């Protein structure tokens, strides 16, 4: 017990990355879309955090903001992203390139389109190694074979010369992981890494991510809309709603003592064997061009108070590491 406590404390004092009041907007003809609006959370070294939320709540935008790979109409308007004691938002393009792939790696949802169709698997993995470690092509290819073996592809040397179209979906996702590992990153951002795979493969790939994390001493940010998947490997969950954080807590707490109404609704909207009907959350994700005033969830919240529509909710620490942005907690 004592051991756990000291480990906890070490973690709290030692975040690998922390997002502080991050604001990322997209500019369109309809107006500015406040995709991420004042997001605050941090990830400790060695932790696996699940970022959960409906489609369009800003999960991917958060990931792309960390990587500073937003599309041209997206802009980070404020806040800080402190990674390894430096603010990523203050780095110039060249410095950012040395971080991408080597310190922070990203795995994309669609491995089928995230691999270049005209380059061999070996070339693509070797590219990361030559880019960041100054290795020769031959060394890089040898290392690439090691990486393919590590992610569980049989016959890795032969696979090096094959093209992505010769791979199955699961193999491509494993290749993406090998590419991500190639730079020996300290932070791995996995954006819906298994959404395109079928059930058994999802479990395999998640397990692989978990194993790699332990072996290589990484920190993982897993982005998904599926709470059950996140529960499989995450230690802590961050629930996002409409560009803001709703709640964050250790994974067990989320399932046993979720405090935010949105999290509770989300849990009830998860398919369960014994339930007759699947519950849905009424209403729809708010328009982020002109989000509702006060708490953004209040129009859909079954327990909304008067104050919810007037003022932004306060952040309340319910218990250690369990933060909730909700007026109900204040009472």
């Amino acid at each position, binding site marked *: 017990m004592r051991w756990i406590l000291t480990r906890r404390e070490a973690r709290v004092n030692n975040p690998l990355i922390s997002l502080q009041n991050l604001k990322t907007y997209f500019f369109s003809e309809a107006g500015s879309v406040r995709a991420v609006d004042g997001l605050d959370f941090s990830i400790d070294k060695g932790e696996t955090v699940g970022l959960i939320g409906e489609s369009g709540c800003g999960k991917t935008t958060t990931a792309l903001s960390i990587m500073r790979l937003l599309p041209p109409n997206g802009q980070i308007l404020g806040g800080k992203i402190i990674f390894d004691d430096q603010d990523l938002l203050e780095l110039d393009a060249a410095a950012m390139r040395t971080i991408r*792939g080597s310190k922070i790696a990203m795995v994309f949802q669609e491995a089928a389109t995230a*691999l*270049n169709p005209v380059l061999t698997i070996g070339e693509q993995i070797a590219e990361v190694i030559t880019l960041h470690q100054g290795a020769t092509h031959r060394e890089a290819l040898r290392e690439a074979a090691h990486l393919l073996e590590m992610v569980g592809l049989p016959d890795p040397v032969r696979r090096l010369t094959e093209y992505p179209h010769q791979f199955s979906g699961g193999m491509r996702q494993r290749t993406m992981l090998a590419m991500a590992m190639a730079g020996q990153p300290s932070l791995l951002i996995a954006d819906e890494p298994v959404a395109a795979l079928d059930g058994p493969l999802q479990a395999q790939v998640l397990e692989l991510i978990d194993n790699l994390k332990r072996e290589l001493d990484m920190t993982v940010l897993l982005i998904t809309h599926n709470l059950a998947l996140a529960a499989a490997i995450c230690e802590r969950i961050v629930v996002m709603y409409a560009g803001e954080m709703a709640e964050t807590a250790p994974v067990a707490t989320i399932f046993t003592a979720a405090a935010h109404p949105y999290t509770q609704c989300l849990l009830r909207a998860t398919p369960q064997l014994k339930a007759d009907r699947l519950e849905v959350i009424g209403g729809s994700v708010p328009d982020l061009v002109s989000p509702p005033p006060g708490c953004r969830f209040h129009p859909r919240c079954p327990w909304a108070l008067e104050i919810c529509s007037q003022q932004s909710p306060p952040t309340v620490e319910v218990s250690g590491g369990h933060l909730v942005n909700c007026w109900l907690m204040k009472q």
Partner: protein
Amino acid sequence: MHDAIARIISSTEPLAGVLHRLTHNKMAIIGVATIICLLVVAVIGPIVAPHDPITQDLSQRLLGPSRQFPLGTDELGRCVLTRIIYGARSSLLTAVTIVAAAVIIGLFLGLVAGYFGGLVDETIMRVVDIMLAFPGIIFALVIVGILGPGLLNVMIGLVLVHWTGYARLMRGSVLSVKEQTFVEAARAIGAGPTRIMFRHILPNCLAPIVVMATLGMGHIILAAAALSFLGLGAQPPTPEWGAMLNSARTFMRSHSYLMTFPGLAIMLTVLGFNLLGDGLRDALDPHQKGSPRE
């Protein structure tokens, strides 16, 4: 046009499949055979040619086809077959040089315009628009007129006219390729703009360029012959098909074979490249074959 590009790009299937479809296309095979024959003639021409292409023999002038001169002799007593064989060499070499230069310029400018967009794109594409506003051969004519006659100037003129098409096609391909996830993934591993442009985007845009360059070969051979015919290209006594047609013009009524054979040579060459180009397009874009009958 844009749909076709997108389809060709998206057909990222193995080269084997493309080759399979190409070799099962009779027309494409005829095209390839014609081009191979032409290449062989151009390479070993000087060995097989029965006579010297330049030495005149006025005692043998304007003879019809015979055993000694299979395609007859011209007004200066030179063997027409020999001159056509030597002409193949210069025609192909000229066309390859022009197309290669035009492809390189067009590829580069199209890549830069498509990738960076904005002012760079506007500048390059407006220049292309201006160039395309002139009828190609007339514009080339003006350039050669300014620079003076000669094969090199014809090449410069045709390259200046021809690169625009490749730039436009390339830009279109780049615009659709650069939105693909693998380009974002390349950024995510820390690749810089130059690497992304040349290593990740460029190879994915080549298929339609190959088709266009093949068709462009036929077009350029015709254009170069036309300029030579007008007296702006290869100068006498260089054996060149267009120039041969020009000098044969005077004898068109009395000795028609003088115009027929160089004309046939041009036609077969252009046909060969066009058949191959069409075949390549169909092979690289299998969806287009889905006509209602199939």
